[in-house]
């Protein structure tokens, strides 16, 4: 990698002041599990790396029955997984966190990093850019090896899938994020944090180049049953091929409302209102869960080599619904 300037601020104000107003010249370092490989592969070549690990305000995991869970951006995946109340209240989130990479990476990787990691698209990782265009402006993905790419939200120009493991569960659980920039803090519903880039200069999230993610707020879920079902190629050190997070707001046996969010199927975590509609007002049965799975992929349009992901998404939703209804981590 190229030489770079290293900054280690101790407050959020210092941190954002060290960030440039445009993407590319500065990068944030937290767990570093993604940033270092991006830098080694010359996919990002920052002039300055801003280490935020010494910013105390970004740390800390807190749960209260009244306000729910507060996850500082620097909370590690391991801290989250080991938190007794989080385990009890948010099974979907814990199941997603437990699926991440390996114990070593869960000990280093952070919640903020999981949400802000860059896509695993192999064209992107091989230096062809986020939108992976060939010299004539055509898509390398659409005509190439797209077996792991998007089956939803893939009308172009982006075909990669959002790599976050936690986002589908967090969105299903109604999480918000606090962002902080030179103008102060702003709050955003997590589903609005992710955006589908239109140009090579855009990023996959709503952060401005000189903003940082402060914390994630998850509302109380005492009456909610949730689950995440992931389909991976390998047991460990892998990103899922498909994931489904489901949160059911129950009234006895009956679903009052449901949230269904798919991961790794679209350039953003993909909400499936069609499935939510199927579930609302019903009692969970195997048939209903299968129907929800079918509805979740009703808009899917697979690329040339990833039709199997439609089937995986359908099954993942079905199994997540059944798992959520049974409860427990």
């Amino acid at each position, binding site marked *: 990698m190229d030489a770079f300037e290293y900054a280690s601020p101790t407050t959020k104000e210092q941190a954002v002041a060290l960030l440039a107003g445009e993407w590319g010249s500065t990068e944030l370092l937290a767990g570093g599990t993604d940033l270092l490989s991006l830098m080694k592969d010359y996919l990002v070549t920052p002039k300055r790396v801003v280490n935020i690990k010494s910013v105390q305000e970004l740390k800390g995991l807190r749960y209260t029955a009244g306000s729910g869970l507060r996850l500082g951006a620097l909370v590690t995946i391991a801290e989250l997984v080991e938190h007794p109340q989080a385990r009890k209240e948010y099974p979907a989130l814990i199941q997603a966190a437990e699926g991440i990479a390996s114990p070593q990476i869960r000990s280093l990787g952070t919640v903020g990093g999981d949400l802000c990691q860059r896509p695993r698209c*192999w064209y992107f990782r091989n230096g062809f850019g986020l939108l992976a265009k060939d010299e004539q402006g055509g898509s390398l993905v659409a005509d190439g090896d797209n077996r792991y790419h998007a089956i939803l939200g893939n009308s172009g120009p982006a075909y990669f899938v959002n790599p976050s493991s936690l986002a589908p569960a967090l969105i299903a659980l109604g999480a918000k994020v606090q962002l902080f920039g030179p103008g102060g803090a702003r709050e955003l519903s997590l589903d609005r944090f992710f955006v589908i880039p239109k140009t090579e200069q855009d990023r996959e999230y709503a952060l401005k180049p000189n903003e940082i993610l402060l914390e994630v707020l998850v509302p109380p879920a005492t009456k909610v049953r949730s689950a995440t079902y992931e*389909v991976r190629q390998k*047991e460990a050190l892998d990103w899922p091929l498909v994931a489904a997070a489901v949160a059911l707001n129950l009234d006895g046996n009956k679903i009052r409302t449901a949230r269904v969010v798919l991961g790794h199927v679209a350039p953003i975590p993909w909400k499936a209102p069609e499935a939510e509609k199927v579930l609302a007002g019903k009692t969970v049965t195997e048939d209903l869960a299968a129907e929800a799975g079918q509805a979740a992929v009703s808009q899917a349009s697979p690329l040339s080599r990833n039709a*199997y992901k439609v*089937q995986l998404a359908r099954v993942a939703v079905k199994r997540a619904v059944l798992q959520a209804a049974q409860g427990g981590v």
Partner: protein
Amino acid sequence: MASEMRSIGKPTPRIDARERVTGQARYTGDVQLPGMLYARVLRSPYPHARIVRIDVSKAKAMPGVHAILTKENCRIQWSSGDSRNKRLLFNDPVRFVGDAVAAVAASDRHTAEEALQQIVMEYEELPFVLDMEQALAPGAPEIHPGGNLSPNNEGERAPETDQRGDVERGFAEADQVFEDVYISKHHNNAQMEPRVSVAQWEGSRLTVWASTQGISNCRRDLAKDLGLPLNQVRVICQYMGGGFGNKNQCHDFDLMASALAKETGRPVKLEFTRAEDFVAVHGRWPTKQYYKVGVKKDGSLTAIRMKAYSGMGPYRKGSGGVAGAQLYRCPNVKTEVYPVYTNMAVSANYRAPSYPQGVFGIESLMDHIAHTLGINPLDFRLKNMTEKYHDEVPYSSYGLRDCVTRGAEALGWRQKWHPPASDRGAQKQGVGMAMGYFGAGLGMSSAVLKLNPDGSLQVHVAVTDIGTAAKTTMGLLGAEAMEIPFERVSVLSGDTDRAPYSVGESGSRTTNYTGYAVVTAAEDLKRQLRELAAQSWSVAADAVQYSQGAVYMQDRPDRRTAIAEILKGNPDGLIAQATTDPKLKGVSRNSFAAHFVELEVDTETGDIRILKYVAAHDSGRILNPLTAGSQVKGGVAQGVSMALREELLYDQMTGIPLNPGYYGARIVTHGDVPDVEVIFVETADPYGPYGAKSVGEPPIVPSVAAIANAVFNATGIRIKELPITRSKILDAAPGVRLEGGRA
């Protein structure tokens, strides 16, 4: 030979286990020398291109940059990098993404990497070809002059052919003829330790700390390619972190480090990244295998014909063989293999190089034939397996039939086997089996044994121990032959200045080759001891006997004189050297294996979960059950990975490898690998030291086919192209019966 084994056959932890797990073992990457420079390599981003211009002036002017090698100032040939063509360290045209175009030595790694960015390369892109059959089609881009069919061993542009009987007559005699195609992919060896080399010159003498499987071969190749006398080259590899066949001989990085060290007058370390390791060295050759097999109604075979293509990448570094048909008794057999140049990564040796892919083909097809004829696959094999090489030459020892029957029993084959896709519902269980074999050859190797005056023994052998516990095995053999405790033996290895020629850790041959030399040298030590005693006792040498660290007069076995007493006047102890080259007499020599798998397929997600895995092996007498068992388990892990996960993928439009690395190529982790029940069918082979045969490579051989056959038994889906991924199961799954016979 002692009648009762003392060291052999007992589970013995590795002689260097403690150093390895406590971080004290000094691997090549740990070597730090004063003033050492760090080197990095610039590689072609194109699969096939002519170099139009190289401008290193900006890079060379950078502070900290000491030397830059390109094709313009370095014409060193890497002779072991290609057996057919003249392959240089830096080639023009470049022939695969990752072909080296420049190497930089700088004061630190980052400066070297920044310098790579400053080298201006201008290429003229050439048409490229990735597919083996397309590479042989008329009009295909020519990767080497003369075409893309790599010459055979006779130098002819013709396939490697093996033939007996008359296959056409065999097909005419058949009641039924089966034709099928099986495809295997390029897999990287994926050993833990990346490629690394440290080179240092002292005057005209070169020392290379290598990460090699064979220091003797590495020295020979370095001397040859650099034009040095052998006594001016020293190769050291005390510990190495795995190779599985891709660290044989010397490599381009050894030569580059040596050349850069010469140029700069400083030691140079060159270490590859994981991605370079996956792309720039070599992996297993992909194959496409066309079979035609004739059978009688009763299931006996009348003819086997195979025509196979092996993708060698653009340089011929390996044989390209496709093995497997040898498993079956059949009067008419013809196999033709076409090793083909392509613009993919180079293919060469990876654990049992020709075997798991060929056995996947033939054992899948035999399974299919058994199924079609309504014969239990186990019975079909018991009927058709051959017990002789080419149905003619007896084996030196033969345990395959026992492997099959004992493995089947351990799995519960007779209880568990059912017609394909018998389970109702989405979760379907099934069992599968496959047989395998691997050559257990004999050949030349050397050992020096030093018996110290206190009775302790030093074994000097040039083994490097790539993970097979070869150092431990050499110590066990020394201990056994001298009938002394293993704790009294030390093994000095991994340094060409301190040890005589060893064959190198490849071909599963260290125990058979170098181990034989150790035992022979020990016999000589015992002879010397007897002669010394005879001299001092003024008796004839044959009146003196040796056992368990002591000599005695034949007629007085109770009056024993210890080694230390015999060597009292001999402060330097005794030295024995043996160079052995045993030959087979009228027999062929193989290790054998049969693997049995029970698994469950989730036909909704394509998930495959192995429930039980039995690996039965005939590797002769097992010298160390602990480390031999580890070899089997490791081989199964790689077999599972090859069957279900791994593939180096290429983008067809750009010719770039898409997923080099552990994550991308989906190399299995512990969580993906089942517990393995290991059964050793111990045949006492008359040629091996204490009856041992080979154990390193055989365990991967039947694994892939056994898993594929179990998937078929579970689902009724026959996947003919590796790896058996979720997408392949799901794409075939609409044809899966969800209403089977079993509840």
